[in-house]
């Protein structure tokens, strides 16, 4: 009788130890999943979403800027069914509107509320007036009068900024936005 009681107690203790051990293992596995799977995956998805959102914002700004170049059309030539731009005026309009829409100063240096984190660079700005179809420097085919612009906007990541920039060995990430906008010549 005593032997059977001892055996029962030993069996119950072993089962309890096993249950407690398994619960601890589950908690450890959950903590590991959180630390090594859930948080990194969430951070990556969130960071990517924010970067894409910033890129969309910049693309919209550059597109609105491109379209404003309409005001540099040579209207006299337009009346003779020929599209021509006053190139200097077009360049000035582009620069002014880019500064306003991306919140930059006249030297293309970002103000405090700008999406850019360092000096913005206009890599290319071309006005296509004739000889269509033409291929822009970034490979898009243009079939109508259009403005091609390519702008480099340095931005920084939002989450784990220091870690990502250290890994890349850079101060910022260069977002190169290329936009071709057709000019509505007949309103």
């Amino acid at each position, binding site marked *: 009788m005593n032997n059977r009681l001892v055996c029962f107690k030993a069996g119950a203790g072993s089962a309890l130890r096993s*249950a*407690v051990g*398994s*619960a601890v293992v*589950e*908690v450890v596995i*959950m903590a590991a999943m*959180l630390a090594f799977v*859930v948080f990194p995956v*969430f951070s990556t998805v*969130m960071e990517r*979403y*924010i970067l894409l*959102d910033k890129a*969309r*914002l910049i693309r*919209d*700004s550059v597109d*609105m800027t491109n*379209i*404003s170049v*309409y*005001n540099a059309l040579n209207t006299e030539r337009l009346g003779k069914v020929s599209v021509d731009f006053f190139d200097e005026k077009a360049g000035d*309009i582009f620069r002014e*509107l880019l500064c*306003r*829409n991306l919140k930059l100063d006249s030297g293309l240096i970002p103000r405090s509320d700008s999406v850019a984190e360092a000096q913005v660079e206009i890599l290319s700005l071309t006005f296509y007036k004739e000889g269509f179809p033409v291929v822009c420097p970034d490979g898009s085919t243009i079939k109508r009068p259009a403005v091609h612009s390519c702008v480099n906007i340095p931005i920084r990541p939002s989450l784990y900024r220091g870690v990502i920039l250290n890994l890349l060995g850079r101060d910022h990430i260069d977002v190169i936005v290329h936009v071709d906008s057709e000019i*509505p010549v007949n*309103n």
Partner: protein
Amino acid sequence: MPARAVVTGVILVIMISLLVYFIEFFLPLSAKADLDIACRDSLLRMENGGGLDNDDRSELQEELEAAGFTNIVINAAANARQGELLTLHVEGDYSWNRLTDLFVREDQVIRMMYEKTTMSRKVVN
């Protein structure tokens, strides 16, 4: 065995709460994208029409209200000649109910803003 079931249950609850917490981070970002898209459409119409008329203003207001914005402020010129700058400035409060703690949900409000400038191309006003 009941101990294991309890632990599994607690872990599941925590994981689901975390998942909900993470997903709800995207709600204001999505609302900002909606605001930007609606305002961009209005700005393109402004550029073409030489300003934001009352119909367009009401349409923008309704669109933003439908997207969940309140206290909307819209500032834009109603009339501009060709070559004049047109700025659309829109602000609104976006409120959403989010998980702030395990089993605790609270209303959060964030002020969002859109400001872009274009140049009027309407020749005759």
